[in-house]
């Protein structure tokens, strides 16, 4: 027995409420973030990730308050992503009680930001979020590219090379989302997950596409991920975190129960 594979529920927070869109439309309200975080903690979540999708800068205080409230009563690691652009954003989130921050577009625009952040706050709190999309054609060798702006804008950057570079710059962990699968409930892009996980020495969290409990187990066993992240299957009470862990255990995966 040793290190457990982690299950990380993700809460997309917009103006202080948890929401979940399917392919970026049809945003459904899923409730109060503090209440949901508390429930996930009691069900055995290994960490909780908040993604601040609030578009306007004025409302950024809302996520800080959410994190403060959750951190006063939930004692597991908390990650906050979305809109992290400068060192001050990181400091603010850590002071609110976050343990890690997710950096996405800001890393693409200026990769040195990741280096500066890791030097300042330590690699343990720097998660680089990668949104990747398959760009190879049928019959070609698999190739994935980094996209920004919620998967709308290609960057021309090769996803595997990018992950390695981010690790070299001091990222402590990679949060990998398949834009092809996100919101589809058809499972992780396992080839992508495996390619990234085998290319870097740091932990990889698989994200995007979970529709059932076998998808979670597949991400670990076939995708070689160290942790799996999912949102909607937990929010709408299709499954509890505990059910997910029991299922993963039944497939031979070590989990914290």
């Amino acid at each position: 027995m040793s290190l457990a594979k982690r299950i990380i529920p993700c809460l997309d927070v917009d103006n202080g409420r948890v929401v979940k869109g399917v392919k970026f439309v049809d945003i459904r309200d899923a409730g109060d973030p503090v209440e949901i975080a508390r429930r996930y903690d009691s069900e055995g979540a290994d960490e909780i990730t908040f993604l601040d999708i609030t578009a306007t800068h004025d409302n950024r205080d809302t996520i800080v308050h959410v994190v403060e409230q959750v951190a006063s009563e939930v004692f597991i690691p908390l990650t906050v992503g979305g809109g992290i652009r400068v060192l001050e954003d990181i400091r603010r989130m850590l002071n609110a009680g976050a343990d890690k921050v997710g950096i996405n577009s800001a890393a693409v625009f200026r990769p040195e930001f990741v280096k500066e952040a890791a030097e300042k706050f330590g690699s343990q709190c720097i998660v680089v979020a990668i949104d990747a999309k398959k760009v190879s054609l049928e019959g070609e060798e698999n190739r994935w590219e980094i996209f920004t702006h919620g998967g709308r804008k290609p960057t021309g950057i090769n996803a595997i090379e990018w992950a390695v570079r981010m690790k070299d710059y001091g990222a402590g962990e990679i949060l990998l989302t398949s834009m092809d699968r996100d919101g589809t409930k058809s499972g992780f892009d396992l080839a992508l997950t495996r390619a990234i996980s085998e290319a870097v020495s740091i932990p990889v969290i698989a994200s995007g596409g979970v529709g059932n409990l076998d998808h979670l187990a597949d991400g670990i066993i076939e995708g070689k991920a160290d942790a799996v992240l999912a949102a909607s299957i937990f929010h709408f009470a299709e499954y509890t975190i505990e059910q997910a862990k029991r299922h993963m255990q039944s497939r031979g995966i070590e989990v914290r129960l």
Partner: protein
Amino acid sequence: MSSVAVIDYGMGNLHSIAKALQHADSRVNVQITADAAVISAADRVVFPGVGAIRDCMQALNDSGLADVIHEVAQNKPFLGICLGMQALLTDSEENDGIACLNIFPGHARRFADHMLSADGNVLKIPHMGWNQVKQIPHPLWHNIPDHSRFYFVHSYYAAADDPRHIAATADYPQAFTCALAKDNMFAVQFHPEKSQTVGLQLLQNFLVWDGTA
């Protein structure tokens, strides 16, 4: 009322540990402080830390807090956490070798690259997540089942010179020391403030500990 000083030497986020101590016992007076006088007057001392050892030791030496740590290490219930545990050793391999506080004789060593798990997968560094902790009897393990999982995130681990100082081990993939104890000193590699119920129990145990094994 009992008071706890959480040593603030500018490294990382101390709010989590302060909040968790307060949650473990609402009557305790938790102070996050860089003031040697406050640390010296507190009933108990918590020494947390994240980041790299060079910056940590430089901050402790420049601020004079290294001296007060040596002082309170003589007589008060003291809890080192994560980098705060590694800083108590003689030295660390990190940053090409850094002299530390030498309160526990021993060395912080880096996990080897490309270690393999039992099922043949490469083990990632940092060692990040929930791992099982094998206890060696000590009052701070009171009411915590042996082999409970605690949350870790680190690339270096403590190799103690004196096996009598080992208070717990975890496997990655070989056994490594994840808690040290001697007299009034206790130190853990994992984060009790992020280890849910068992972590809060350990903090609660620390808050009532009289500093004797």
